[in-house]
């Protein structure tokens, strides 16, 4: 029964979304508010139905209702409680439900917030959002229905992909999809602006905070994804430039470019065409990302699912891109702004460069991701484009971006006078150069690491300088130190939220640089009682233990770690054997520290426990990535707060 009820709900939701989208458009064109009203009801109905369908599926998971095919495939009686809930988005069909639920949530928020405010945009925004929702509901009804009946009902399910049995997987997809779907809001407003011909700055100002919200969640999703990769996948890294990681990274890059370039349009009213292009690209890339993840078009460790839905996604991408850019072309005459710039040395230029490099990074990732396809289509030769390529090509781009991060916020708008440059940059540049010298003397020999460290210090100095001066100004008006600082953050939350985000990125950059430049690793086969030395750590193999877990068989190695002769910890990396998987899954163990993580992966072992191969990594400064990520999300949250009105 569950399958039929669920399927009926998705089908009705599809009908409602389709009706709502059309009714909004017709209502707006013919000026019939009744239609828009009814579309609103349809949208609310869609939301309720999707959420109900999602809860029904969760219920099916919790009760092991194996008559639903999706449940039978993605869980079994041994799956622990929490992972039965998260199994919901363990594969394609459920991910689409999650996606739709979030999109319909955003749609609901749009209704709540704008139904009586943005009279011109509102119906079109609603129409576009419901149109996009229609697509996802269509996928849920035809090529990938989550509520497919399985007959006969099997006694037990197959089980969740073991890699997904992790706390990171509880939050990662939710954050990522909130980010992905969040970009629908600015996109829908942009489309509404194009359709109504009100292509001024209004759509952008309305959606500015929505964009930051989407950006916030996307950043969070990427960070949790990196964390998951680091502590679950067992290869010792946090970012593999996997096509699916790239798919989430590309909209982040273009979205970041968009966040910056809207500032120029707000102040100088130029770059309209550019901003529309950026938001269309960003939204298009979120759909492309889903397409990549879920169609199996590019093979990837992450392609947990494959299906025939590729054609649906391709059609939708074509519709979105052709439609949106077609509208841009049709409205082209309104979009050309007569640009004015006072000087090439100005913040406008710095932001233009920032956009160039962000888009260049996105393009590099995009082109590298699809290049294997291109090579195959044109030369008939399969090639790979992987981590070594992306690291190499992106390094200069990211260094340039860090540099611009220091320049952008402090250089004057319009025209930077020599005085402005000297006041704002002399000290930071000095600090950067000094830092390079100091680090060199401290023994940092790697030129890239040195450059990056120096740039980070430069940017940090600009931020500190600015904050110091602003606080100083407030102190002179008689405020006390802490209230002055707090007031600054709250009153100019957009500016200082941005600074905090920048600081977070600097810390992440330090972590990336440090981990790439100074991590060491070794892999050895140890007999019981034997030890290896890495850095100041001594790792001794003490034996193996086997255990039967609820849904898998586990072999755990015991390693005693000493730091400079002092006993430090007992570490227990393991290998998990799932009946539904052909190869074992590594369960890593690590000791986290600010300076370095000791990271153990259990390899082959002798069955009698007499010897085991272990990969030991000393990952330096990886923790900074998580700290930086945390700072970054704090900054984004600060920037999301409503701006106080200035008197």
């Amino acid at each position, binding site marked *: 029964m569950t399958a039929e009820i669920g399927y009926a709900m998705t089908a009705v939701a599809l009908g409602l979304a389709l009706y709502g989208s059309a009714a909004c458009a017709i209502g707006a064109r013919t000026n019939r508010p009744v239609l828009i009203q009814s579309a609103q009801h349809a949208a609310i109905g869609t939301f309720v139905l999707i959420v109900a369908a999602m809860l029904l599926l969760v219920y099916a998971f919790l009760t092991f209702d194996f008559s639903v095919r999706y449940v039978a495939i993605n869980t079994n009686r041994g799956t622990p409680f929490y992972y039965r809930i998260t199994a919901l988005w363990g594969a394609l069909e459920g991910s689409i439900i999650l996606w739709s639920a979030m999109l319909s949530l955003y749609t609901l928020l749009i209704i709540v917030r704008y139904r009586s405010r943005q009279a011109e945009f509102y119906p079109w925004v609603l129409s576009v959002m419901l149109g996009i929702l229609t697509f996802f509901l269509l996928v849920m009804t035809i090529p990938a229905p989550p509520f497919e009946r399985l007959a006969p009902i099997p006694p037990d399910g197959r089980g969740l992909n073991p890699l997904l049995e992790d706390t990171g997987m509880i939050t990662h997809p939710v954050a990522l999809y909130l980010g992905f779907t969040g970009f629908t809001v600015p996109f829908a407003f942009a489309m509404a602006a194009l359709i109504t011909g009100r292509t001024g700055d209004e759509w952008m100002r309305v959606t500015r905070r929505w964009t930051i919200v989407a950006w916030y969640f996307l950043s969070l999703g990427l960070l949790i994804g990196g964390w998951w990769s680091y502590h679950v996948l*067992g290869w*010792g890294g946090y970012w593999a430039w996997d*096509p699916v990681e790239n798919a989430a990274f590309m909209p982040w890059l273009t979205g970041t470019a968009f966040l910056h370039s809207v500032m120029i349009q707000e102040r100088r009213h130029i770059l309209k065409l550019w901003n529309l292009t950026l938001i269309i690209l960003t939204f298009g890339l979120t759909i492309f990302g889903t397409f990549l993840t879920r169609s199996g078009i590019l093979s990837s460790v992450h392609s947990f699912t494959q299906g025939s839905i590729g054609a649906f996604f391709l059609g939708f991408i074509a519709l979105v891109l052709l439609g949106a850019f077609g509208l841009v072309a049709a409205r082209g005459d309104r979009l050309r702004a007569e640009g004015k710039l006072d000087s090439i040395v100005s913040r406008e230029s710095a932001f233009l460069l920032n956009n160039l490099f962000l*888009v260049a990074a996105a393009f590099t990732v995009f082109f590298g991701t699809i290049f294997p396809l291109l090579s195959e289509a044109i030369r008939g030769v399969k090639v*790979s484009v992987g981590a070594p390529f992306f690291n190499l090509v992106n390094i200069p781009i990211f260094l340039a971006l860090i540099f611009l991060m220091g320049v952008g916020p402090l250089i004057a708008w319009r025209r930077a006078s020599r005085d402005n440059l000297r006041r704002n940059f002399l000290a930071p540049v000095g600090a950067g150069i000094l830092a390079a010298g100091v680090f060199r003397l401290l023994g940092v020999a790697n030129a890239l690491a040195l450059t990056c460290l120096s740039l980070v210090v430069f940017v940090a100095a600009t931020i500190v300088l600015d904050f110091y001066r602003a606080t100083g100004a407030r102190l002179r008006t008689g405020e006390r130190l802490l209230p002055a600082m707090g007031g600054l953050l709250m009153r100019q939350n957009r500016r200082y939220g941005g600074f905090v985000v920048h600081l977070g990125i600097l810390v992440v950059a330090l972590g990336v640089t440090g981990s790439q430049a100074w991590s060491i690793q070794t892999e050895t086969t140890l007999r019981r009682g034997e030890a290896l030395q890495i850095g100041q750590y001594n790792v001794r193999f003490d034996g193996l233990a086997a255990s039967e877990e609820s849904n898998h068989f586990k072999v755990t190695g015991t390693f005693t770690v000493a730091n400079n002769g002092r006993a430090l910890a007992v570490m227990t990396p393991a290998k998990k054997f799932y009946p539904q998987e052909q190869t074992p899954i590594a369960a890593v163990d690590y000791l986290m520290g600010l300076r370095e993580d000791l990271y153990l992966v259990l390899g082959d072992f002798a069955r009698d426990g007499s010897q085991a191969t272990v990969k030991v990594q000393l990952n330096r400064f990886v923790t900074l990535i998580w700290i930086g990520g945390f700072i970054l999300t704090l900054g984004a949250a600060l920037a999301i707060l409503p701006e106080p009105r200035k008197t």
Partner: protein
Amino acid sequence: MRRAALALALLLPVLAWGAPPPGAVNEETVRQIAAQLRCVVCQNLSVADSPSEMANQMRGIIRERLQGGDTPDQVMAYFVEKYGEWILLSPRPRGFNLLVWTLPFAGIGGGLLVILMLTRRWSRRTRERPVAEPVDPATRERIRREMTELGQ
């Protein structure tokens, strides 16, 4: 980034390694080569990173070939011979592959030119018609306010 630097080193093998003395194999060299090769069973991790059995064996083969006196280039060539170019994690920069190496930078170059042209044109326009935007009192007032706020 270190890995990237290594990629560079592999592109310029002359700089990176001479012929290693047979017998003594540097584990770092093994890792450097492994980092350039795609683990064939996992499809998206390098042989250096993958925890899989197959990657483990491939590392062993790299070690063995180095011990046999192969240069790192020859080891890579061996894997390419068996698996095709697909096994290299970064496409060899020659022929059609040059496209993926150069296009991003060509794009940046082109973008810089466009930005330069646009900013020049826009700022010239401002210079030609300075009357269009004189620093009106309101702006001056705002600037002053902002400056005080920033403590300048």
